[in-house]
């Protein structure tokens, strides 16, 4: 509650919070408010020459190149993009948290091996890795989410590692240990709680990155499979129309921008509130 009230006091954070809430509500309510089925290729959705229709009273945001209603696709696409954002990022943060804590807490072989593995993954050109993985695993919604998670956990692990190392040296942990506390107790009662703010911040900021990465993968043709709409593949299918039918590229583009921006604003505000020492660092 404290978090929420302090967020509401900052205009930028409030803006982000409102947009995020709106996107979530619209995504949940998509079946109720979408004017058409997102997959229906309507005969009157194209001109006789096969061109998409611009925004009109019938199709509020126009139609796409197959004669489908863009508004309906964007609404359903929000579900896809949010699910990927939440799942991919949730998994990435969990993996990062786990590996970061273990490698920070456990000295010796295991800790070292884990950290070297993290270094190794950091050296991978992320986008290339994502492309190869996507080609390998045949993209579906869940696979795309997993690919993104596999690429994104590394940064989290790095940060968690550093923080854990800092915590391990702190007096109260040393004291606990000298009192004979088990590893499990130290990890779950003392270290993990201190890392929760970091996890929450990254969980939020990472959603923006994830939504953008999903869009990039779609742009390269290896995102979520059609006809399931995602914001990324809506643009992918119409990228060459940016001049002939700008609404097909720039409306979804603006939606992605606004959503990513809002998650970034909320994440940033969360960081300021939960972890004042990290203020302002990108």
């Amino acid at each position: 509650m404290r978090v929420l009230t302090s967020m509401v006091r900052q205009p930028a954070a409030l803006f982000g919070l409102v947009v995020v809430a709106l996107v979530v509500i619209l995504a949940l309510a998509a079946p109720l408010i979408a004017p058409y089925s997102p997959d229906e290729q309507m005969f009157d959705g194209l001109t006789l020459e096969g061109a998409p229709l611009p925004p009109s009273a019938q199709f509020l945001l126009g139609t796409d190149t197959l004669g489908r209603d863009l508004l309906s696709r964007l609404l359903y696409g929000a579900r896809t993009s949010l699910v990927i954002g939440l799942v991919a990022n949730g998994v990435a943060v969990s993996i990062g948290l786990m590996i970061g804590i273990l490698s920070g807490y456990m000295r010796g072989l295991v800790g070292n091996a884990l950290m070297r593995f993290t270094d190794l993954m950091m050296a991978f050109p992320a986008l290339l890795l994502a492309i190869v993985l996507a080609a390998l695993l045949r993209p579906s919604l869940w696979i795309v989410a997993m690919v993104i998670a596999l690429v994104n956990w590394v940064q989290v692990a790095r940060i968690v590692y550093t923080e854990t190392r800092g915590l391990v040296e702190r007096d109260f942990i040393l004291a606990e240990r000298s009192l004979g506390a088990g590893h499990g107790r130290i990890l779950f009662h003392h270290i993990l709680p201190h890392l929760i703010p970091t996890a929450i911040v990254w969980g939020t900021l990472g959603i923006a990155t994830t939504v953008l990465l999903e869009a990039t993968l779609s742009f390269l043709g290896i995102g979520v499979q059609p006809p399931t709409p995602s914001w990324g593949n809506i643009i992918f299918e119409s990228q060459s129309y940016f001049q002939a039918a700008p609404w097909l590229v720039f409306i979804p583009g603006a939606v992605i921008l606004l959503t990513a921006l809002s998650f970034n604003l909320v994440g940033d505000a969360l960081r300021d509130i939960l972890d004042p020492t990290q203020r302002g660092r990108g």
Partner: protein
Amino acid sequence: MAFLLLRRLVQTALILLGVAAITFLLLYALPADPARMIAGRSATALTVANIRRELGLDQPLLVQFWTYLQGLVQGDLGRSYAQKTDVGTLIAARLPATLILMAAGIFVEVVLGVALGVTAAIRRGGFVDRLVMMASFVGVSAPQFVAALLLLYVFAVTLAWFPMSGFGSFSHVVLPALTLGILGAGWYARMVRSAMIDVLNQDYVRTARAKGLSSFRIIVRHALPNALLPIIAMIGIDIGQFMSGVVVVEAVYGWPGIGQLAWQAIQQVDIPIIMGVTLVSALAIVLGNLVADLVAPLIDPRIRAR
């Protein structure tokens, strides 16, 4: 120092070996057959088998990897399946373009980021500060390809200030560098701002100010140097990001860099090229981090002392 350097170099070699092994394994597992891609539709089964044998693809995974490593230690990245040319030559021909784009992009990021960050720090808490911080988030939240298309449309197609595509002159690099730079400047702006604010609150700066030193001198002498270290660290990270992240920008602007090379190779399952680009990128990422780590002590005496 020398020992440290040696240790880092050994680590780098090991990391590259790991990257090579993982990439090789992933590519080996790809559900696609390079021999089949070269052979095309009209090839007979015998032709395909011949091609597979000549490429050594009929060998077990470990033998293939060992052969590849043997070449690698001698600096041989192998031969492209589709182009029948040394991968090293192909990458060398395209690497300069990527490096130029990367350098130009980082330059825009740093200049823009520092300017915005300093402005925001000086006007801390004010309207300008909030505006800059908001703008920096807008930049980092924009989908790269939409931004690239927008810049292309406005400045190359409509206004015709810059060429639409290609490589070779200064005007060619402007739009792709701006695309990368504008989108990334936000991180730098935020960082510079917070580093500056830290310094501006320090006692010695207050003293300097009380002594009547101009704010310009305070910023240049005291505040900016404090931001240098994180900027260099950031550049190190950016090198890594850009090495593979410029695929999209290169594609939109027809920039002849290794991103396009990699993308085409992935479409054709040209494994030696994919391996080569991955390794070169990984090397750049590792070196980027290494350089950042090595330069850091030269700037901040506190780190040198450690």
